[in-house]
């Protein structure tokens, strides 16, 4: 743990179990895996979407479509920053129209990122249903957004941050709460 870490909320095993449960819940609600498309929100949401996609493949035998969404161009706070955030690319190689799309992100906080993601998705096509899967819901919503699948509910204070570390990016799987 680094000097800023206050508490570990999920360890490697806990994180994996949460994703497994989410995968099962998605499959159950959709009545199968074929129709589902997972769209991860950059950057760590994409990794989680890939992992969930792999788990669904293990459960159902067929891998669902997985895409990556960059929401920078749809953010509502662009004019308030001193310099523009870097734009990354969106890679969604399958049609959105008529699909059940599950947005995947690591931490749900104010809800603004999800709002932007929904606008971005709509510009790419008209999904039949949009659902939301998050690894951690830390509360403090500023918009009326609610997740459909949650790995862990985590009450936090505004001064804290929640850090999701993933093997593919940070060399380790864990979720910690940090002081600002």
């Amino acid at each position, binding site marked *: 743990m680094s000097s800023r870490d206050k508490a570990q909320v999920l360890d490697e095993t806990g994180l994996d179990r949460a994703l497994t449960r989410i995968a099962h819940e998605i499959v159950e609600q959709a009545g199968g895996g074929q129709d589902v498309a997972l769209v991860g929100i950059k950057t760590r949401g994409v990794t989680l979407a890939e992992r969930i996609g792999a788990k669904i493949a293990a459960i159902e035998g067929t891998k669902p479509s997985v895409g990556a969404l*960059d929401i920078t*161009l*749809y953010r509502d706070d*662009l*004019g*308030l*920053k*001193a*310099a*523009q*955030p*870097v*734009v*990354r*690319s*969106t890679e969604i190689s399958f049609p959105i129209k008529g699909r059940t799309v599950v947005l995947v992100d690591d931490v749900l906080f104010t809800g603004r990122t999800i709002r932007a993601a929904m*606008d*971005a998705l709509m*510009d*790419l*096509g008209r999904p039949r249903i949009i659902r939301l899967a998050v690894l951690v819901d830390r509360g403090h919503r500023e918009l009326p957004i609610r997740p459909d699948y949650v790995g862990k509910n985590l009450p936090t204070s505004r001064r804290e941050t929640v850090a999701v570390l993933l093997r593919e990016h940070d060399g380790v799987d864990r979720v910690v709460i940090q002081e600002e």
Partner: protein
Amino acid sequence: MSWKRKDLLGMQDLDAAEIIGVLDTAASMKEIAAREIKKVPTLRGKTVVNLFYESSTRTRTSFEIAGKWLSADVINFSASGSSADKGESLLDTARNIEAMSPDVVVVRHQAAGAPALLARHLRCGVVNAGDGAHEHPTQALLDLMTIREKKGHLEGLNVTIVGDITHSRVARSDIHGMRKMGITVTVAGPPTLIPAQCQELGVKVSHRLEEAIAHADVIVMLRLQHERMQGGFIPSLREYSRVWGLSLAKLEHCRPDVLIMHPGPVNRGVELAPEVADSAYSVILDQVSNGVAVRMAVLYMLAGSKSA
């Protein structure tokens, strides 16, 4: 790598990191052109004014599309002539436009230094869309983007720029931008069209076309303006196209994977034989699509942020 500058006046002002920032952002913007709904809300509510003193449909249209795809409101001002004798002075026009609160003014003018003058006097950001023979930074940026796309990298490449270097803003911007990215640049043309002390810009100078393009990875052909025959720069178009024009025969001695680029519009039969312009070597049309992406990236980086 995000930008903290108010204006884009020339490639000379940018460092390599800023250039890469634009190229990466432009690559992301390019995806929008492939969508069914070519719009993102990023610059919604922002106003971009195209102030074009030199007529130019293609560059102006490129900026216009770029702005509109970002949901900005784009206004076209087509002013004509030089300020002194034709009515309103440049500064007065600019002040009038500023009174309408634009977020970015894109300026093309026949006088070198005009965008710099505007940038000093306007609160909003200024983008240089071409000032006299000085700079045309978005052209250089789209040229770099095209080369990087096709070759996969920039550093270590050899690029030869052929034609009227003296009067070319594209040449100057390309030279500055390419050198910053580690490209070796050669300029080639008759001595009358190479400017004073050109080699001090850090380029090789050649007066023989075949020798200059033999090892080039990319050849940038510049447009020859017909006025050059007055003033004794060249004796005739016929001689120019015979000696300096690019034909398929001349390309046989070049690298098989050489790219041909041209800022447009092409004088078919003068600097490029029609067969060359239409050949597989030519990436001229890629340049045009990349132009929109690069201009989207530039507008995003200048117009979106709180001004510095």
